[in-house]
């Protein structure tokens, strides 16, 4: 099953994650993200989490692990549209200090509609 889609636009390398992100799925998508990051050397590496139904510490590890590499090539990391549970988990690991958590307007409107 496809767990991620990677696209590049306007200096952003966007990694759209889907479904359940655990140790098993992370192993399958990690190398693809690294390869694309080194090829594009984007201004930002964006993890789009709006379609993630489940994430555990392996997902945190995926994001944190990319941080070290991204930092070396001057790429910033943005976590976009995490659900409340995932945002709380990110904060538990204090990683909001080293990366940006962002909620786009579209997902805000969705929230209001719910």
């Amino acid at each position, binding site marked *: 099953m496809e767990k991620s889609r990677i696209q590049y636009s306007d200096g952003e390398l966007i990694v759209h994650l889907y479904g359940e992100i655990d140790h098993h799925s992370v192993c399958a998508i990690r190398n693809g993200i690294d390869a694309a990051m080194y090829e594009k050397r984007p201004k930002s590496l964006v993890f789009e989490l709006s379609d993630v139904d*489940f994430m555990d510490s392996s997902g945190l590890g995926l994001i944190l692990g990319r941080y070290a590499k991204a930092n070396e090539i001057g790429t910033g990391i943005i976590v976009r549209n995490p659900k409340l549970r995932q945002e709380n988990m990110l904060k538990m690991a204090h990683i909001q200090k080293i990366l940006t958590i962002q909620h786009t307007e579209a997902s805000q409107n969705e929230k209001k509609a719910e």
Partner: protein
Amino acid sequence: MKKKLNEIRCTFCSVSQNEALARSIVTGFLLSLDPDVDELADIRCAVSEAVTNCIVHAYRQTSGDIRLSMTYYSDRTLKITVADNGCGIADLAKARTPLFTTAPDEDRCGMGFSIMESFSDKMTVISHVGHGTKITMIRRLSPSDKFPPT
């Protein structure tokens, strides 16, 4: 007096596909308790962490059995154990420290124990180096008017 109402015990191989299987077992087992959505998500995540630890750390380059058991009682407390016969943990205090990990190069972030701890009311770890580790988590679910089923 609280009564034991249901129990499941299962053993599966330490392959990473079984992380999702373990979460499905949790969901299936707890469904009849009509758990709150967030509580169910907490417990699924806690079990996922425990099972991942068995695969990534306990059995490392080897493989073995992971034993998952869950029991629920009439007062809506849930007891979960996850046990392995892997390498064991030499320094438990260190292992339980947030952000500590023995495998940073594999993108482990050292939050497994912290997450299990925060998603359960009580967590105990018994570990013997060379013999294995057993995690016990207790979590009391909030009341539901659909439970006990009439």
